[in-house]
């Protein structure tokens, strides 16, 4: 029904603006970074000649410089994104040179007087010509209504894209309009139920789509691209890059990057997740679609804490709790994980899943080892004490540290303590437990602590400059 009325409207319209019918197909490619490629295909019937073709219902967050329009038998002359939204100001601007009616209400008597006026200018104030007089609208502050005869046809309630095109012969086919838009984005969300007793985690992955573009996309076939594409103007500042690096280094939850490939569809260097069914993404809607489900992925829990520098602390420090698993096929998962937040649940005494913390992962290739930080342990604490500092020589200093690890849980635990950010030359001179060098400027020790007990790690590190 709407199709016929559109053609009729286009044919009868003296402004010769053709409006294609509703979308025949609508394709969306949505990226992680608040960006989407939209492709509308709409049927169009035109006589030969030059036409202005209007597209309503495009995204309000359209990046108009990215619009491309194609149609068989049509040559584009020019392309306009008339952001001429109908507002009171535009209404007045378009009335310049034409007549409007002014209804003034006398604030003393309440008498209404109607006059006809010609709008001369709207810059900085509305200048009117009423009969022989020139006036500025409401300069006297007296209430005055302005009545316009009609709404100009090219002002609209929604952003509209118009294309001026030449048709060599009558056209009866499909035209395609493609553009990039802001306001559509997606990321992954994961629900991980950690079954500690069974030593596994069940992982469900959801694609979360958000639409804040101001437009509803009806019956769209959507695909999602995982990967951080470069967008000019979106580059991070140096300090953001620095912060990010420090954050990644200090809280890295990827312990070993994977080298497996999954059978997922790829686009350039990115992974593509097509949605199986056409879907309607309403404005202001958050939509979730399942894309991954893995049961009984081998997992365990670990405690760790990293210390930078040597210092005593008055308050005990809680150990970080990490849930560790691998997304390798051997571990039971075997799929890459697009960037998102993993929410971890554990069961309470009644078997009900309870939320126990969350961590963000980056795009993680299959076969990676992950250690998600979910929180601070209530019952596992570390008390650091700097016992002595000794100047061994002009450049060498020995640091004698003690870490008292207490465990109030009824099971024994192992806590990994890392001493990080050491000077350029560093070595362990003595240690109560055999540790290991983790990189050029850090060492780590795995401290076993008995149930409801404590253990002390002591070591001496010499560092020099």
């Amino acid at each position, binding site marked *: 029904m709407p199709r016929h009325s559109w053609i009729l409207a286009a044919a009868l319209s003296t402004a010769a603006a053709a409006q294609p019918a509703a979308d025949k197909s609508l394709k969306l490619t949505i990226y992680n970074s*608040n960006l989407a490629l939209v492709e509308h295909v709409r049927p169009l019937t035109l006589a030969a000649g030059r036409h202005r073709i209007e597209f309503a219902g495009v995204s309000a967050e359209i990046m108009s410089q990215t619009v491309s329009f194609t149609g068989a038998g049509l040559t584009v002359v020019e392309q306009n994104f008339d952001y001429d*939204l109908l507002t009171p100001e535009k209404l007045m601007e378009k009335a310049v040179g034409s007549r409007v009616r002014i209804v003034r*209400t006398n604030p003393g008597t309440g008498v209404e007087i109607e006059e006809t006026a010609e709008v001369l200018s709207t810059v900085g104030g509305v200048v009117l010509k009423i009969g022989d007089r020139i006036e500025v*609208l409401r300069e006297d502050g007296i*209430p005055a*209504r302005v009545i316009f005869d009609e*709404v100009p046809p090219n002002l609209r*309630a929604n952003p509209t894209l118009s294309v001026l095109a030449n048709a060599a012969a009558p056209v009866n086919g499909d035209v395609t309009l493609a553009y990039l838009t802001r306001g559509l984005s997606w990321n992954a969300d994961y629900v991980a139920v950690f079954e500690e007793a069974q030593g596994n985690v069940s992982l469900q992955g959801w694609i979360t789509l958000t639409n804040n573009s101001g437009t509803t996309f009806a019956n769209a076939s959507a695909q999602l691209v995982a990967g951080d594409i470069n967008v000019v103007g979106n580059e991070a500042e140096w300090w953001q890059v620095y912060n990010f690096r420090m954050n990644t280094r200090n809280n890295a939850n990827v312990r070993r990057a994977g080298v497996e490939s999954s059978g997922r569809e790829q686009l350039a260097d990115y992974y593509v997740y097509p949605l199986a069914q056409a879907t309607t993404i309403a404005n202001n809607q958050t939509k979730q679609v399942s894309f991954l489900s893995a049961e009984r992925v081998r997992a365990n829990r670990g405690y760790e804490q990293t210390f930078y520098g040597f210092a005593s602390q008055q308050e005990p420090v809680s150990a970080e709790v990490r849930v560790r698993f691998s997304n390798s096929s051997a571990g039971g998962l075997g799929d890459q994980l697009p960037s998102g937040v993993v929410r971890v649940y554990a069961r309470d005494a009644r078997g009900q899943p309870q939320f126990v913390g969350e961590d963000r992962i980056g795009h993680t290739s299959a076969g990676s080892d992950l250690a998600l930080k979910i929180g601070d342990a*209530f019952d596992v604490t570390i008390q650091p004490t700097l016992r002595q500092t000794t100047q061994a020589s002009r450049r060498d200093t020995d640091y004698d540290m003690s870490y008292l690890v207490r465990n109030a849980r009824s099971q024994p635990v192992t806590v990994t303590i890392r001493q990080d950010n050491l000077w350029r030359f560093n070595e362990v001179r003595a240690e109560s437990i055999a540790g290991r060098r983790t990189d050029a400027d850090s060492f780590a020790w795995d401290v076993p602590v008995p149930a409801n007990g404590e253990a002390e790690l002591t070591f001496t590190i010499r560092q020099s400059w």
Partner: protein
Amino acid sequence: MRAKGTGLALAAAIAALPALAQDEVVVTSPRADSIAVTIYRDDLALVTETRTVELPSAPVTLVIDDVVETLLPQSAVLTDAARPLAESNFDFNGLTPRSLLERSIGETVTITRTNPATGRVTRTAATIVSVGEGVVLQTADGAEALYCSGLPERLELARVPDELLAKPRLSVKLAAGEAGPRTVKVTYLAHGFAWSSDYVAHLNERSSAMSLAGWATLTNSTGTVFEQAEVQLVAGRLNIIAFGEGGSEAEPVDADYEESDVDARARIAREQAEDDVALLRDCYPTGPPYFPRPSIRRFSAAPASAPQFMRMEAALEEITVTGARAVREELGDYQLYRLPWRTDLGARQTKQVLFLDEPSVRVERFYGFRLDSLEEPPEEDVAIPNLTVRFENTEAYGLGEPLPSGIVRVFEQYEGRDVLAGEAEVGDRPVGLPVELVIGRAQNVLLETTAEVDYEGRVFDRIVVATEHRIVNNKGVPIELEIRHGVEDYFTDVDLKRSSRPMRRKYGDFAWRFTVPPGEDLLRYTLSAREPP
């Protein structure tokens, strides 16, 4: 005439867009059968709802109404439906002045104008043509802009468009399956909940023991009422990804985020609402001198239809104190406290529950004083030590229960009455750890500290500090005193050369603990250290 026809067709097309596809089976679950709420420390709760729904065998859209408005859509999960879930949608087209007008484009409304002199009211039928920066109306006379004439003007609408919801709505699309009644679980995280712990301690007359009661204060600042809910509280620090942290990990996080998430959300919502309302009033230039626009405040003064969480700041309505004690269990690496029975948790309500009640915890009471620099003397000539209550969180001391962080208020007996002796903050304390509460400053106990600094060594790089503390105890009874001396990290080879009393190390400090009889006493010691080259 033609233009008008086109306008109507356009309006019809817009109205048709949000409608769902035809012949879709929709089942609505109006409310939960039972509900469980697990409240975390900072502005978070896990809500688990049990709902019974009658499912047809065909694919179905299940609409879940009456969920908490602060729901985090990406955390929502439906389980036990026994059929595959195609997608899940969360819609919140909140009812605001702007959304109301925007969704009413093409609708017939009434514009009411009041003549400022005569008070005569004129009512005119109009159609909303556009809502953007300002509102444009079409009347039988022609087109007009709303709020531009300087007259008092008001719009009246016949109805609220269906797609505008006062509360958010969760809906899930389920594949075909077995028909019949089915009990499903809906779980999601929601903001607007918090709990804190407070302790009340009563010292006995000899200050050798105290009773310790722990109270959990839980707050529901949302607009949702929970009837007969199972309530749990979780103590411990969970890793929570900050609000406003966007899509990918590549977006760095501002660690010094001073505003809390609740504040940020409320502020953003408020600013958006204000901007939206301001934009509705945009006009063509109305010419200088600017006529004061009618001060129509009906939109800007806290719109009644604004999202619920904007009103969280409103005073919490009532505080309920319950008599029963919450039961503790371990949840992973946290402590979980379960309220023993189902309880009603009202909107904007605060409730208090007892979670710890120990009749007699053995305590030591001493006065403490700490110097935190090797060579810098204390700022005042005369220092007053702090009154400290110490105990160990063990069964031997009469305790041995995890203590979630909170404020401890200590009461003393004075002439048969309870007096507040002071309060102190305590962090999460697992079983086995010592707790020291600094509750106030000493009365009638003074310290005079003097230090003599000397340099030794071939290049005078060894600093030698002789410190003397003169203690004046005017209490008339002996007191326990602990003096600690901390040395800055940049000194090396720190050494206690001489001491008038035995020393032990405490948290890296040099510490002396001794009894001071009434009158005066002395502590003398010499510390030496090397300065870095």
